[in-house]
């Protein structure tokens, strides 16, 4: 089947192929150089957070992400840094009851917020049902994406029960069932390179059924 239109392929330019091209640090451009502008106020901020039910105050460089505030300042390292760019989900934690990528949020923007990390969900001695289900179903291997998977897993059940639709939801106006397909789609923001996906699905299904 030929394309619906005829078209011309765009011409490519040849790179200067030979030696002696001097390249500098790169092309950060206008935004990068920002022509000598300087911050208009303090570069640090004191933020009050409730973390796992406990009031915490932390003074951070404004650049500090919520993830780094947790990991480096509060030393709650259960929340993982996988990519630091919102592309893997390892940093997933709960802010005011919603799961978010903590790597793509500044700590300074969370003053007064309630944060729940994996440490607040359960401990090795007293695991939450989802944590137990992950162990029972071997829903992880290296364990690095696991806290984020568990955070998402708990949220996914809540989100389905709250009627929030997903990409695979059929009728947008009907009640949404907790199906394998719904869980898989909603968990897709959490990458597991070890490939424990089907065991994670089993763990989530187990918890969903137990709590039905």
């Amino acid at each position, binding site marked *: 089947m030929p394309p619906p239109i005829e078209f011309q392929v765009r011409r490519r330019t040849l790179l200067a192929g030979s030696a002696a091209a001097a390249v500098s640090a790169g092309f950060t451009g206008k935004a990068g150089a920002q022509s000598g502008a300087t911050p208009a106020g303090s570069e640090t901020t004191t933020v009050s957070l409730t973390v796992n039910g406990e009031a915490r105050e932390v003074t951070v460089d404004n650049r500090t992400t919520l993830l780094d505030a947790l990991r*480096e300042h509060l*030393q709650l390292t259960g929340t993982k840094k996988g990519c630091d760019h919102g592309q893997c989900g390892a940093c997933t934690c709960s802010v005011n009851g919603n799961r978010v990528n903590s790597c793509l949020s500044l700590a300074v923007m969370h003053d007064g917020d309630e944060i729940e990390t*994996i440490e607040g969900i359960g401990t090795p001695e007293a695991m939450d049902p989802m*944590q137990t289900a992950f162990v029972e179903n*071997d829903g992880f291997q290296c*364990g690095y994406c696991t806290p984020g998977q568990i955070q998402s897993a708990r949220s996914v059940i809540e989100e389905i029960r709250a009627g929030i639709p997903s990409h695979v939801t059929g009728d947008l106006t009907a009640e949404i069932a907790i199906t394998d397909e719904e869980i898989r789609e909603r968990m897709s923001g959490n990458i597991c*390179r070890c*490939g424990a996906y089907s065991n994670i699905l089993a763990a989530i299904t187990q918890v969903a059924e137990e709590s039905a």
Partner: protein
Amino acid sequence: MQFNEPAGTNLFDSATIVGKDHTRIDGPLKVTGAAPYAYERHDVVEGQLYGYPVGATIGHGTITAMDTEAAKAAPGVRAVVTTLDIDPLELGMNNVARLFGGSEVMHYHQAIAVVVADSFEQARAAANLITVSYEEGEAVDYSLDAAFERMEGTGEPDTQYGDMEAAFSDGAVTIDQMYHTPGESHQMMEPFASIVDWSDGGDLTGWISNQMINWTHGSLATTLGINKERVRIESPYVGGGFGGKLWLRADTVLAALGSRAAGAPVKLALPRPMMMNNATHRSATVQRIRLAANPDGSLRGISHENVSYCLPGGRGENATAQTPLFYASEAMHVKNHLAEMPLPETADMRAPGEAAGLMALEIAMDEMAEALEMDPVAFRLANDTQVTPSNPDMPFSERHFAECLEQGAEAFGWDSSRPAPGSRREGDWLIGQGVAGAFRGALALPSGARAAIENGKLVIETDMTDIGTGSYTILAQTAAETMSLTMDDVEMRLGNSAYPVSSGSGGQFGAVSSSTGVYAACMALREKIAQQLGLEEATFADGQVGSGNERQSFLELDVEAVDSIQWGDFMGEFQKATFGAHFVEVGVNVYTGETRVRRMLAVCDAGRIINPVTARSQVIGGMVMGVGAALSEDMALDTGRGMFANHDLASYEVAVHADIPEQEVIFLDTLDDVASPLKAKGVGELGLCGVAAAVANAVYNATGIRLREYPLTLDLMLDQLPEV
């Protein structure tokens, strides 16, 4: 302990712990975020500073100048070390790209500077202030197709027997095709990360993320030019490796150099966008496979040539690895070529060789089955062998490939008279099924451990790592079994260069080697216990030791033993390998060409399965990686610049939850008493081998479109799909 003859009957044949399901003993720590990975060791040393790397931004060439003044003057900066500040560092074991030092740029994002600052944010900002001038190297032809054309037929064959010309002459059914596999990146979830304390330039301690403690221990000493005795490294939890963390990498070197320069411990993780070009990857391959068969399906000839790229001294990706061993054939010609190119370093990624090789060979087998009008399962069965094809005097220790195919066909519901390609449709989806064989060698390496009774516990120490493979659990099972204790009696300590040297984790050799090492140490401990108690003919049962009716507990003793396993020469009389069969059903959208896997089955012949829970996870994980390799993973080489352009996790697409359907795994209950005292072999890489080809064959069955280039993306199919 020497393993000098086939295992014979031993305690593992009546095991109650080994071979049984056991959830991971490190599980509760991992699911609660309490397992500490390398970058998270706040407690190990005071005053940690933050390091941030700078990568080269040309494909290859020379650095002519670096300006670090602004970086050094930036807030919080404690030290800046550039590659021009020091002589080229020695290469560590199996490194071919220099990790640091000197002005030569061998590949894009090679580390050229480290900035150390009080905070991560300060270090990152300062790193961006460094400017670099380069003289770019000569333009390079990065075409692997061109390299194949140049190199095909040259050099001494790696395997050559029989009369190839006759094999492909009169009466033979033949196929002759080219296959392409792309570069693949490990992209383990935990980035390369280290904390290193080399504050005084004397003794060095590293808390790192690494699969091979002993190799890396030595490499770090070599690279930094210090005595190995002065170096200690720890890696108790590793957030995935897949071969990417077999070697010393730039994160550890930069943290060390930064630590020495700043006079304080330094923590550093490679930013994700730098990982793909800085670290190692699986080379792309171009392969030509020619097969000749008799009309009855028996293979007359196999010719397989492969080319991959590497830096000088590198190993590329030997996609022919399995070919001399997998199928019987009257004649064979196998040759692996290496094309040197100034690209990021190519080295081992999960099932190096076989992973890329089977992606091609198992499509070729499917094509040949079709040419013969045979069922692809039957065709493979017809070419099974119990001996090395080139050397009939060397048998396989155990080989149950045929059972894998047969049991798999049965369990999957494989229909040998399945619909013709492109004829099964459900709604907008064309449905197809595919099969592929799996092969992966069964290596074993020397491996040691210390077993001791301490404070009422059996303590096992070994530098073995657990990269998600389940080492903690299977080694505890092995120890508990050998000592007749319970799992609760065992305390495992892994991943520390202070412990006895193990095999480490890689090449599918970890489980078999390290479990045997622990077995050796425990058997030595049993002797020590018997000696200490003055027992002759001591037997261990139910947590007690004794001879005759005199039994006593031994957990109150203070006793230890160190031993390792050494593998005997007799093993060289056998081919040792693992086998499998993958069955896959896919749907291909008739409009868009999107391929989605609908169900998967793997049948594995890998000796005794020490722990079916963790072994199954290894296999399904391999299958997931195989789906990514089949459908989306592709390091996009900018051939004008010699760099991989899609260097983050948004643009290098690994499989996500929604890509993975129902998966089933069957382990054959085969025992291999040549492979190890446990009669076990590895399984962690077998799960990946052949998966992508099974997907490709299923796509063909669904659509009638034969793709020989991965990933099998829709753009390769659109113009051949049915009119809409």
